[in-house]
């Protein structure tokens, strides 16, 4: 039945969550949008003493997160971020959710309004397998990451790493750090080249800051 709050260790973290956690300073105020069962906020609280909270759209998942003792509210990133005051958080995290929101650009703007920094992770639609499948098969790609058919995927706004760089430039966001990794979290050997990362990276994590 109820096991109460569970301690999650870093090795159990989903790869992108581990990469995100590395970008967050100890003791920070963090809002995790699309936090799922709250694994990241639990990890940030326990290992870094962060004041971490979450928003999640799925009621069932929210129930289990609160049942674990985590401060999570049911809400919609497209709607609910607008209610927070400016600068309420040090970091606002959006892990693998950007591609599923209705208005990604507006969500990013809200994140950098209510937070000093934004940490965004997303699956890279520019990966070579995705490109190759569309090129050779002529059908919407289906990979380990993009694993749902086009008619039922929640990922309505896929983008590539190059697309995301372009959006940050257009919106005036400073990319303080970025990295691309495969599903297992390995970063080499295309660590420094955005062009290679866009071809070989299965997922990307960006640390952004609004230009002052």
């Amino acid at each position, binding site marked *: 039945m109820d096991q109460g*709050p569970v301690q999650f260790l870093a090795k159990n973290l989903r790869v992108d969550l581990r990469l995100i956690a590395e970008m967050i300073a100890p003791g920070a105020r963090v809002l995790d949008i699309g936090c799922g069962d709250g694994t990241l906020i639990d990890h940030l609280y326990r290992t870094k003493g962060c004041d971490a909270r979450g928003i999640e759209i799925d009621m069932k998942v929210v129930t289990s997160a*609160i049942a674990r*003792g985590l*401060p999570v509210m049911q*809400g919609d990133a497209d709607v609910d971020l607008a209610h927070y005051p400016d600068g309420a958080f040090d970091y606002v995290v959006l892990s693998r959710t950007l591609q599923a929101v209705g208005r990604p650009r507006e969500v990013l703007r809200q994140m950098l309004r209510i937070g000093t920094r934004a940490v965004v992770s997303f699956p890279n639609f520019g990966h070579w397998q995705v490109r190759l499948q569309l090129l050779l098969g002529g059908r919407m790609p289906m990979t380990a990451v993009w694993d749902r058919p086009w008619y039922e995927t929640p990922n309505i706004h896929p983008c590539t790493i190059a697309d995301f760089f372009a959006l940050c430039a257009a919106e005036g966001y400073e990319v303080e750090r970025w990295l691309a990794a495969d599903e297992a979290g390995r970063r080499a050997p295309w660590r420094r080249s955005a062009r290679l990362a866009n071809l070989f990276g299965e997922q990307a994590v960006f640390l952004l800051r609004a230009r002052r």
Partner: protein
Amino acid sequence: MGSANIAFHEVGRQAIFADPNWRGGHYWRAGVIPERGLAVARMVAHITYLSEQALTRKFGRRLRAAPIADPLAPFSDVFEVESYLHHQGSTFVRRFDANSYVTITRAMDHFDLAAEAGGDLAAAFRGTPTRFCLVSFSSDWLFPTQESRAIVRALNQVAANVSFVEIETDKGHDAFLLDEPDFHRTVAGFLAGSAEHAGLG
């Protein structure tokens, strides 16, 4: 309290006032109680604690036959829901005082946290260190989810620490008294988490 809730309270109070035993609230001097009025007030209120689905599931349109069939009173059979409400009304009279009922419902109607904070609910929460947990029930039309969301929004406006979830149930407002495992899990988890943060875990 929204306008509809105040309205239901007022129907209950008027039922009490209409009882001849009410005597302007001085019934206790005469050693009587306005049982009819208090029972009707409870019957009205009880309906607001249930949902359409819960009522249908429990009673539907089932009838309970009248004890004596009277050809001159063709509709003397009683719906089960009627008999249930009669029971709720009559048991309430035994354990609740009419003046208390009138005063408490009035106090609830007049309570307005936003008004006390100059009309802005968020201002009432500014700077709060408290951890909040709001739980609503999908079929509760007495305190519907949208009203809980309004409180959550106010708490978000001051970046308060708030948990919020709507529990899926067809049991209406009374769900909080009944066996709702998701609700109990939520409350237990929130209390355990809060205790841990307060260093009591």
